[in-house]
Each structure stands twice: as structure tokens, then as C-alpha cells.
């Protein structure tokens, strides 16, 4: 009798805790993983060395010995001036990249003085209406040295041209700009819900931007294909993995259809994943993402340049795992999640602040969040060795299992006619809502635990940490500044360029040059949105739950 069989008998004879041993996503887990679970996975075809196909163990041969991940805290609040101060604060504390959070009106492509922007200006991010705001936002920040990520999707193309116009004014060549535009509209329809037009015109703008940047802004990541928001909307790990990569395949297919060559644009595609609470499942998800992407890019789309095969990604710890209750313990959750992101091989990382279930982060809270990354990088020793969990029976088996689950979803999406058709039929949305409801019910029934919420509750607890508030003067000041910009710009020229843009939108050409023209002249975000909407129309969602 082998040791395994002996163990099996002992295990069966043991008394077990009355607990749910599935993963947070509901995946069934064995009590023990052995060589038998991962035997088939140890070959070069599945693993290979880091920096080599299929990249399961990492995208670089040297990983964090060569370069640590970029410590990039997502930040934006109130006016561009206030946000600029926060960026400078973060940079002095050792942050190594910037990440812009825009407010809701900006995310929808509306100006601060739009009737429906009332009450929302500067509340959950920074308000940007024109190039003038871009100038204030990055004032004194060396854009040729610090990389900048911008979380913007529906109006991504014209926020980017405002960014470019600002670099131009400051004499920074486009070729030296480094950064990332989120620019991922498909996950907006699936999860985040910030769109302007129907899918087709948005997809055209994305392809236009890829083509323009390949030529003019070669170091810029033109898209960050995002699972983060899909996960925050309640998906499982496998759904996050599958829907994100399926979105990625769709962007590739659109660009190919528009006549772009795969190795011209694919190296600038980047990804963004969530790091949730289930430690090993998250690490396996990130390792699986690299392997799946490499395989599809090489084998399905015929990419030849190894850089086209790389799934490079940013990670943010899970906002939805944070609790308003006992907010200080969020520091610990975030540390565990961030560690999963690092062990999963991320290229950049945002750690949430303890107060983010309650408000935008205070300086103190964001400093602790950044320090958490610094402890992982410089104290814990985990960055010394590449893919330290590679070869773990459990992690390798889980990586394979998530890959299989993702492939299963790819087939279902294919059967529905692709991602856009699947979204129209509400397929990913319904899958996510079902998963969210099941998790919430598991919490209600106490089959899953959220400390401080459904167990270990402090009755009648009082909030003991300071919160920041965005006061009403922000909206007033922003609207006043916008009016001043409109009064001093050349309104005749703005009008003409907007008309040119509208004409260009009705034709087949690349829209980025026309958007850049408008941005240079301080056309507002909302003016550009309106010009394009006249041609492209608006998207209306069919609500369901």
C-alpha cells in the first residue's frame, strides 16, 4: 500500500470542521494535491522557463530580479489642482508610476456643467473638461520619466489626445511618453457600464487609436483589457479570466479586420486583473492568463514576434473585498491580495487603502497602502526568486483547471456568435449576476465568512479613522474654470474643428488626428462627445437582473 493510500484512509477517518472547503469562486478543492495531480503539467509545453513560451512562469527571464513591479496607486479627487498635489505626495513617498482616476461625468464624456453632472463633479475621481485641466493635472510632473496610466474608456481617444496635446505644449516628444490607456469598452458593456455609443463605433475608435499609436506613440499601451471590473461586479475567477481574454481576442480580430498587422499592435496590448481574497486561486488565474494568451496569439492568430505573445498585466487588490466595518483590517486583506498579485507575476500593482469602502482614500490610508507594497518588495524576500510557487502540485493543477474553465467559456461565447453578440444577449452579465448572488447568499447563510461583516462582528462599533470629503466648492470651481476656458479660447476655430471631426466620423478614416486638432484648441470633452454622438448614436442598455 502506497503512502498516498494510507493517507487517504487516515483522512477519511478524520473528523473534519463543518466548513465550506470550496474556493471563493465555488471551485471544488481536494484536501491534498500530489504529484498525480500535476504530473502532466510539468512538461516544457505547459511551463517552460520564465520569459519563454508559454510564459506560465512570467513574462521576463529575470522577473523581479531585473525590475520590480511598478507601484502605481490609482488616484484622482476633486479638481485637477487637488489631484496634482496628491500625485506629488505619492511620488515623494516612493511611488514609481501614476494612475489617473477620473470622476463619473468625465468617464461618460460629459462636461462638469452638464445638467446630469450635478452632484457628481470630482466625487469619485478628478474632473477633466479640457486641455487646461490636463495641464494642471500633470503640472510639474516629468511625463517623459514617469509612466502614466489613465482609467478611461468611452471617451478614451479624446482624453488621450488632450494628454498628447499637453505633452506637445511642454515639448515632450510623443515617442518618449510611456503609459497605458484603459480603453477597454467591451468590459464596460459587461460590467462597469460607462459607455457613450453602441459597440461598433467604440470598437472603431479603439482600432484607430491602436493604428495611430503604433506609428506615433510607440511606447504607449493602447489598451488595458480589464478583468478587474468584471470581478468587482461579482464574477468568479474563471469568469474574470475567460471574459477578459475573450474581449482581448475580439480586439485582436477587429484590428486584423481593419487591416493592421498583428505584430504591429499586439505588443502594446496589456491587461488588468483583480487580486481577490482566495490566495492560490488568484495566483493560478494570473499564471493561466499568461499561458492562454500566449497560446492563442501564437497558434490561433499567427503572431510571430514573441512580444505579441505576452500577457503583461496590472493588478489591483479587490475593492469589493474591503469592509466598511472595522476598516483597519482591510490593511491585512490588501496585503494578502497584493502578495497574490506579486506571486502571480504582475507588472504593476495598486494596493487599496483601508478606507475605500467608505470614501476616497485619505493621505494616511494611501501611504499605508503604498508601504504595504514596499514591505512585500523589500522586506518579505518574495521578490528574490522567480515564480516561487511554480511546480507546486496544487498551484499547477489549479492553473490548469482555470485554463480549462476559460476554454469552456470561450466555446460558449463562440456559440453565441462572439463577444459582442453575447453581450447583446446578456450572457456574460447574467453569468456574473448569478455568481454575485450565490456569493451573497453564501455570506447570508454563513457558508462563507467575511470578517467583521457576517462573523467576528463588533456590535455598535464606531468609526475611528478620518475620512476625506469632496465638498461642494469643487463643482462650483470646476464649472467656473470651464467657463473661463471657453471665454478665452478661439471659439470660431473650435467650432470649425468640431465640424471637421463630425465629417471625419461619418467617413472611414482614422479619427485620432481630428481629435487631436480639437483637443489642442481646448474643445471640451462634452463638445467632442456631442459631435461624435450625432454620427454614432447613443447606446441604451436593456436592464435585467
Amino acid at each position, binding site marked *: 500500500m502506497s503512502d498516498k493510500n494510507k493517507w487517504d484512509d487516515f483522512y477519511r477517518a478524520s473528523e473534519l470542521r463543518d466548513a465550506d472547503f470550496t474556493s471563493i469562486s465555488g471551485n471544488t478543492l481536494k484536501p491534498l494535491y500530489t504529484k498525480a495531480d500535476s504530473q502532466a503539467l510539468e512538461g516544457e509545453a505547459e511551463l517552460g522557463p520564465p520569459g519563454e513560451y508559454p510564459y506560465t512562469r512570467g513574462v521576463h527571464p529575470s522577473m523581479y530580479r531585473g525590475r520590480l513591479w511598478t507601484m502605481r496607486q490609482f488616484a484622482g479627487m476633486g479638481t485637477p489642482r487637488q489631484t496634482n498635489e496628491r500625485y506629488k505626495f505619492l511620488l515623494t513617498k516612493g511611488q514609481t508610476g501614476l494612475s489617473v482616476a477620473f470622476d*463619473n*461625468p468625465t*468617464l*461618460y464624456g*460629459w462636461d462638469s456643467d452638464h445638467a*446630469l*453632472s*450635478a*452632484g*457628481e463633479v470630482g*466625487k*469619485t475621481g478628478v474632473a477633466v473638461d479640457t486641455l487646461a485641466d490636463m495641464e494642471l493635472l500633470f503640472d510639474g510632473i516629468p511625463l517623459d520619466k514617469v509612466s502614466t496610466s489613465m482609467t478611461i474608456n468611452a471617451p478614451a481617444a479624446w482624453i488621450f489626445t488632450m494628454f498628447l496635446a499637453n505633452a506637445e505644449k511642454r515639448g515632450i516628444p510623443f515617442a518618449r511618453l510611456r503609459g497605458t490607456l484603459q480603453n477597454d469598452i467591451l468590459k464596460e458593456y459587461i460590467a*462597469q*457600464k*460607462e459607455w457613450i455609443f453602441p459597440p461598433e463605433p467604440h470598437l472603431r475608435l479603439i482600432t484607430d487609436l491602436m493604428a495611430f499609436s503604433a506609428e506615433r506613440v510607440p511606447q504607449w499601451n493602447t489598451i488595458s483589457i480589464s478583468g478587474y471590473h468584471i470581478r*468587482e*461586479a*461579482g464574477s468568479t475567477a474563471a469568469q474574470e479570466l475567460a471574459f477578459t481574454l475573450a474581449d482581448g481576442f475580439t480586439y485582436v480580430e477587429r484590428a486584423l479586420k481593419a487591416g493592421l498587422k498583428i505584430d504591429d499592435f499586439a505588443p502594446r496590448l496589456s491587461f488588468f486583473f483583480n487580486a481577490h481574497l482566495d490566495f492560490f486561486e488568484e495566483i493560478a488565474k494570473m499564471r493561466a492568463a499568461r499561458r492562454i494568451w500566449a497560446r492563442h496569439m501564437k497558434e490561433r492568430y499567427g503572431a510571430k514576434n514573441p512580444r505579441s505573445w505576452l500577457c503583461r498585466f496590472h493588478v489591483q487588490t479587490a475593492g*469589493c473585498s474591503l*469592509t*466598511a*466595518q472595522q476598516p483597519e483590517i482591510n490593511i491585512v486583506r490588501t496585503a494578502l491580495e497584493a502578495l497574490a498579485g506579486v506571486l502571480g507575476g504582475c507588472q504593476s500593482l495598486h494596493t487599496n487603502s483601508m478606507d475605500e*469602502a*467608505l*470614501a476616497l482614500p485619505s493621505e494616511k490610508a494611501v501611504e499605508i497602502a503604498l508601504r504595504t507594497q514596499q514591505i512585500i518588495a523589500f522586506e518579505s524576500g518574495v521578490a528574490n526568486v522567480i515564480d516561487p510557487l511554480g511546480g507546486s502540485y496544487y498551484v499547477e493543477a489549479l492553473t490548469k483547471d482555470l485554463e480549462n474553465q476559460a476554454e469552456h467559456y470561450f466555446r460558449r461565447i463562440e456559440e453565441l456568435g462572439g463577444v459582442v453578440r453575447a453581450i447583446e444577449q446578456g450572457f456574460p452579465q447574467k453569468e456574473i*449576476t448569478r455568481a*454575485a*448572488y450565490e456569493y*451573497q*447568499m453564501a*455570506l*447570508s447563510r454563513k457558508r462563507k465568512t*467575511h470578517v*467583521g*461583516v*457576517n462573523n467576528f462582528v463588533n456590535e455598535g462599533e464606531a*468609526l475611528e479613522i478620518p*475620512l476625506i470629503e*469632496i465638498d461642494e466648492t469643487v463643482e462650483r470651481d470646476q464649472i467656473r474654470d470651464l467657463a473661463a476656458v471657453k471665454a478665452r479660447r478661439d471659439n470660431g476655430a473650435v467650432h470649425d474643428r468640431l465640424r471637421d471631426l463630425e465629417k471625419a466620423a461619418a467617413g472611414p478614416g482614422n479619427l485620432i488626428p481630428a481629435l487631436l486638432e480639437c483637443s489642442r484648441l481646448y474643445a471640451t470633452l462634452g463638445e467632442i462627445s456631442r459631435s461624435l454622438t450625432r454620427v454614432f448614436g447613443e447606446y441604451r*442598455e436593456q*436592464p*435585467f*437582473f
Partner: protein
Amino acid sequence: MTDRPIKVIVAKPGLDGHDRGAKVVARALVEAGMEVVYLGLRQTPESIVNAALEEDADVVGLSILSGAHLTHFRRVKELMDEQGLGDRLLTGGGIIPTKDQETLNKLGVGRLFGPGDDLRTIVDYIRTWAAARSK
């Protein structure tokens, strides 16, 4: 009390796209035997109150995670009162600081729920309110 189920309008006013909570609560209310009309995203106070009138809803539930809760709850409450829906329950949830919850409670807005509140607490609250109303 009539036999008809408690009718609830669930809506997301303003620009906030976080609809996970609204959908999960909507589903829990349906499972609890209530009738739910989910209006979806980007609703205005006017569209919400119009729907409440047309549907003759007992309860209006708003979900707001964008920080614009004072603006939206206030306006919906005003319109409900103007339209003769002052006896209906206006409740909801999101990221709403205690101080703001108190401000809204004083204006006649019902209990507001936050992340981590048990779905059954929300169901019980609406049932209790409806039972008290029909007495």
C-alpha cells in the same frame, strides 16, 4: 392588507455604474415574494418617480455608490411628496456615511443600507414597514 405582493422599484440614479448591489438586492426581494421593477442605470429623479407612479409602487429603492446620494435622495423624496407618493417608502443603499444617512432620515427617507448588510435584513425591513402601513 391586500393580497398583492409588495411592489418595489429598484433604480440607479445618476452616473454611477456600480449595479452589483442593486441587482443582488433585486433578486433577493423577488426570492422573498416581492414584485420588483428594475429600472437600471442612469435614471433621473423624474424617471424614477414617474415609474413609481405608473407602477403604483409601495417602495422605491435607490442604489448610489458615487457620492451623489444627498442630491439624488433629496430630489426623489421631493418629487414623491409632490406626486402624492409621500406615504410610500423611499429606501436604498450604497456608500453613504452615517452623517449623511441621518440627514436623509430627517427628510423622511427610510433606512439606508451599506456594504455587508445581510440581504435578509433588507427583506425584513421592507416587510415590517409594509405590515405597519397596512394596519
